[in-house]
């Protein structure tokens, strides 16, 4: 099984961020009012965000840490008796600490993304509200993923792969024939199919049909982690039968 995910970590995307030019269209003509509109929401966002997002994320952390701390103290007592176990336990502590740090980091990353997303949503909402799309200044969210996101997305695609593989069946006379079909699937955050289409036909309609049937039987897909919903709904996932 080979999973190929290549919409992540593209150096070009970093460049666009540095240059800050929207390649889609040139900036529209801005009036003072437009600029004011753009600036206005910004002070309101920080106010909204702590209420909406942080309460969801932050409680998770304290709960985890408070649960783990008592454990550590409980473990610390027997450690006095045995010297060997002290080393083990300190090592475990270190591991746990490191693990928690990682978790916190990812949580922070989540929050940061949530904030950015909210900003974007607000901006686009404002734009829609003023019925005047502002081009040029607004950076598209992009699909570049790095670090933990990338791993999480990979692991989602692994789940998806194994689910479809379970339903990938052919009549025996078509097994091993040199036929290749690519299907493009798009799906919602809850994993329900939005669309499935033959992106590249094998030339054998029956084979294509069996590929589509495998997708059909595998849906709904596993629920999509929030941060990827847009990617999978808009760009979709290309599935190669068999490659």
């Amino acid at each position, binding site marked *: 099984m080979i999973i*190929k995910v290549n*919409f992540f970590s593209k150096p070009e995307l970093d460049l666009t961020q540095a240059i800050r030019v929207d390649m889609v269209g040139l900036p529209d003509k801005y009036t003072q009012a437009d600029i004011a509109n753009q600036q206005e929401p910004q002070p309101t966002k920080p106010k909204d965000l702590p209420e909406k997002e942080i309460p969801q994320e932050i409680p998770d952390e304290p709960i985890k840490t408070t649960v783990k701390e008592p454990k550590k103290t409980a473990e610390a007592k027997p450690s006095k008796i045995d010297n060997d176990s002290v080393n083990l336990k300190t090592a475990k502590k270190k591991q746990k600490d490191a693990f928690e740090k990682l978790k916190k980091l990812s949580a922070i990353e989540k929050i940061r993304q949530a904030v950015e997303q909210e900003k974007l949503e607000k901006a686009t909402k404002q734009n829609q509200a003023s019925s005047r799309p502002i081009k040029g200044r607004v950076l598209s969210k992009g699909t570049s993923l790095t670090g933990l996101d990338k791993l999480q997305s990979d692991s989602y695609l692994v789940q998806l792969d194994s689910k479809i593989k379970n339903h990938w069946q052919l009549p*025996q006379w078509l*097994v091993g024939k040199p036929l290749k079909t690519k299907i493009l699937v798009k799906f919602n955050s809850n994993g329900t199919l939005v669309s499935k289409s033959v992106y590249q036909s094998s030339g054998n309609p029956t084979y294509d049909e069996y590929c589509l049937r495998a997708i059909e039987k595998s849906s709904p897909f596993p629920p999509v982690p929030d941060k990827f919903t847009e990617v999978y709904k808009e*760009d*979709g996932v*290309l599935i190669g039968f068999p490659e």
Partner: protein
Amino acid sequence: MFKIRQLVFLTFVLSLISQLTWADQAYIKIGEAQGKKSNLAFPVLNQINTNKSSQNVKVAAEIHKVASDDLDKSTYFKLMSSAAFLENTSSTSIKSKVMDPNGFKFDTWKSIDTDFLVRASFSLIGDDIAIEMYLYQINEGKTVIGKKYNGKTNQTTQIGHIIANDILEALTGQRGSFLSKIIATTDRTGHKEVVTMNQDGSEQNLITSDRSVAISPNWSPDARKIVYSIYTRKVGSAQTNLTLFEQDLNSGKRMIVSNRNGLNSGASYSPDGKYIYLTISQSGAPDIFKISSKGDIVNQLTKGPAGAMNVEAALAKDGSKIAFSSDRGGKPMIYVMNSDGSNVKRLTFEGKYNSTPSWSPDGKKIAFASMFENYFDIFVMDSDGSNIKRITTATKSNGKRASNEDPSFSPDGRFIVYSSNRSGSFQLYTISIDGTEERRITNDSHNYYKPKWSNNLE
């Protein structure tokens, strides 16, 4: 962790490779599909005659049984039990509702997970059978084929096989082997005689009655003639010879093709039936020769080296290559050469004793028998000697390993017939080339050896 790192690395490498093609696109390679037996519904034939006499029902049932048994044996299908059918197939027409107001509904069959449906009507007037048959793909709601058959009541088996072959060809592009035959030798008379039978072991027919030892029979491409070798003694001579005969199966007439000193055996026809490749040992060591159907030597294809034996010439279906066994390297192994004797290549290097090569009809695979401790098993390899797979393994009732010998490919290339002594005597079995679906086709306590499968005979 290692897996993740590996994955990340792969991801990175693959993304570089195909960045241009699949820029910004999540992409999964699903891999090879699992083969699944397709659910096939094949209700009994609809009687068209208003007079549904017991004779009508009986003849229709015979044809239905032959065809559905064949489809079952093809290993492609799981035949659905008629108890699962949701509609009364005798009251619905053999066509779909789209074509006929009284027709069946695709959805009814879809709801019980039918992949394919065969519907056929039957009429019998006097001795004349008329059948109309349709094959439907249920999920797509389409007709795959529709055919009409006419025949006599003594042709029910043949009609059944032809229906099955038509269905197989429509779906897979290849006809089955149901109308082919198998030739072998048997000791059931107390001597070793040549016997022919249908591919399922039925209708056995003793060809020879020489009360001698007949060995290595084989078919001509059209299966009208056969060749075999018999131990004979020239009048006034003490020496026995293994003499090659050719026999016309229709007339029963036979003639001696080669009676040179020593072996004249292991014969195999050229695809046009004009030449015979065989082992001749007149000059001492057994070597492979090409002779005309009259017996004149056209070409000596092997020569030793150093007195080595070269036997069991098996001609590829296109006639371009010959597989054979030879002990020129020490132990008997499988070799291949061009049919003019050039370009000899050794294919097998393992095992104590490798023998009796047989080509798949497409020339891509070679089956052979290989001996271990004291028993043989059947193996299949690619025709370049790679990818060797053992396809048989069986034990006798005493727990010892049975011997599986003398493989021969079916004309559709999906099965192999061979001889096995697991029951106590050597009986004929067929097996699919992936080593599944093994079936015993002879059922007695005698011995059957050296089976060869004919071409398809429709």
